[in-house]
């Protein structure tokens, strides 16, 4: 049995260690961004006393004449077309309430939900009574954002066979600002597991299903035991993602894969969700060496 007890070590910011040249303009609420009135106000700013003041804590971004402040730690703010992974919290009359790490619970209407087998028909009263048979409290689903209401609540839909209820796997919750926007968020990694990078920060790691012919939206739950080799891959991926998150690195398929490959020669799996800071640093330095392309690095705010 393994038992690791140690004294706490103060964390050094990553940018200091690697000597980054680009200094981010970090602000806190109330800081003046600029006194020049020629700029357009973007998100996270407001005009007060002839100057532009920040309303959130984050880094200032400027695109031509638009100044906005991108918050470092925030709840998920829905945009149409995002892929999210959510957990059902309530079953209501004609809809489900889904928790997606945003300010308000998201809504999944019964009419936006795929019926098992991919049927297309009008939802009847029997469907309404059988709602709990489809999705219960605690179930995990993958869905796409259909619309955003005026109060910020998000309306989801699972109108494609690749969305729906999720089966066996591991959920990792990270900050939404660390998930990079990409063309596709469903990745089948070559190491043997698949991952769904939800834009709301919920990351779902699951064993790659063998039969890909009919994706029935996950209603046929596969509760067979997952093999030991797949479990090792999933646990290693989970620890890699958590170590990337502690170093505030963006998450996308290549970054996770590089981290996984860098961790392979190390001791099987570290005891605990957070590997020791030494491994963290080593992995992120190796990762930076591999990724010579800097545009991605300059996009993320490092603390």
């Amino acid at each position: 049995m393994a038992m690791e007890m140690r004294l706490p070590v103060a964390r050094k910011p990553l940018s200091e260690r690697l000597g980054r040249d680009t200094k981010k303009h970090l602000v806190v609420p109330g800081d003046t961004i600029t006194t020049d009135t020629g700029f357009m106000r973007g998100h996270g700013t407001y005009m007060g006393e002839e100057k532009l003041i920040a309303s959130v804590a984050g880094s200032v971004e400027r695109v031509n004449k638009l100044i906005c402040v991108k918050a470092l730690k925030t709840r998920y703010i829905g945009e149409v077309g995002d892929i999210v992974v959510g957990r059902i919290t309530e079953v209501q009359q004609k809809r489900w309430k889904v928790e997606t790490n945003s300010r308000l619970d998201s809504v999944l209407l019964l009419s936006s939900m795929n019926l098992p087998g991919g049927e297309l028909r009008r939802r009847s009263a029997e469907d309404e009574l059988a709602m709990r048979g489809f999705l219960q409290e605690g179930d995990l689903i993958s869905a796409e954002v259909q619309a955003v209401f005026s109060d910020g609540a998000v309306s989801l839909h699972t109108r494609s066979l690749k969305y729906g209820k999720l089966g066996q796997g591991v959920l990792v919750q990270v900050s939404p600002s660390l998930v990079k926007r990409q063309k596709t968020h469903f990745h089948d990694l070559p190491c043997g597991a698949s991952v769904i990078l939800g834009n709301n920060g919920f990351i779902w790691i699951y064993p790659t299903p063998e039969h890909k012919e009919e994706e029935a939206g996950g209603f046929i739950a596969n509760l067979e035991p997952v093999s030991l080799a797949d479990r090792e891959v999933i646990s290693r991926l989970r620890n890699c993602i958590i170590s990337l998150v502690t170093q505030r690195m963006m998450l996308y398929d290549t970054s996770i894969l590089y981290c996984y490959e860098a961790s392979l020669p190390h001791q099987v799996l570290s005891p605990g969700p957070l590997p020791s800071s030494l491994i963290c640093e080593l992995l992120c330095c190796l990762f930076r060496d591999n990724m010579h392309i800097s545009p991605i690095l300059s996009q993320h705010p490092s603390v």
Partner: protein
Amino acid sequence: MASVTLSEAEKVYIVHGVQEDLRVDGRGREDYRCVEVETDVVSNTSGSARVKLGHTDILVGVKAEMGTPKLEKPNEGYLEFFVDCSASATPEFEGRGGDDLGTEIANTLYRIFNNKSSVDLKTLCISPREHCWVLYVDVLLLECGGNLFDAISIAVKAALFNTRIPRVRVLEDEEGSKDIELSDDPYDCIRLSVENVPCIVTLCKIGYRHVVDATLQEEACSLASLLVSVTSKGVVTCMRKVGKGSLDPESIFEMMETGKRVGKVLHASLQSVVHKEESLGPKRQKVGFLG
């Protein structure tokens, strides 16, 4: 206790993983998460410790005050425990929500210290029947990430190790009135011997096996747990079953053996860490809460 909702498939995944001795984060059934211990973090206490076990964060402060000994034990001092579940740990603890859990943990601490050998209470006596030291042990739950009892017992032991009680002398006048004199040197103090202070090992039954140091997700899959309080020599001082499920007498025996084995290693690691911290001396860099 804070709890997470899980889907059926997630629970099945966790249960099968425990069966194969490979948990979600890669640990075996008898592995602990990485523990961070730091003592002397609160300056206005006689002793303090902070323990981080995964996402569980506990802060313990010990204050030594003068009081009168209890009537049935006139030659001994005593310990008083108080557990505060702060609302920042989880929204369920807001208002009076955390009181139930707090009293449960405090009662468990009273039980495990309720024997003659855990702490030598005679060292806390100043003058029999009149004055004694009372150690008020305050536990603050900062964050709840599963396995509260273990983390709290580790923090209490580390805080008691760190406690420095000022040395006092009782002077008698000719008329017989007693005066208590504090020593001039602020570093002249008595330390408690924590050799026999027990630590709690929680064993959760998941499926047909049991695990040590369960996370919140694993606790949601387990119906019954056994809390075993073990000293560094492997002696069990107290045992308690929690949860609404039932336990087989054979599994209770197995869990107790595992608890004794794991407890000895836990004590050895804790001893080495606190001694190492003390050997760094007063010049060590304190990380505290801003690290």
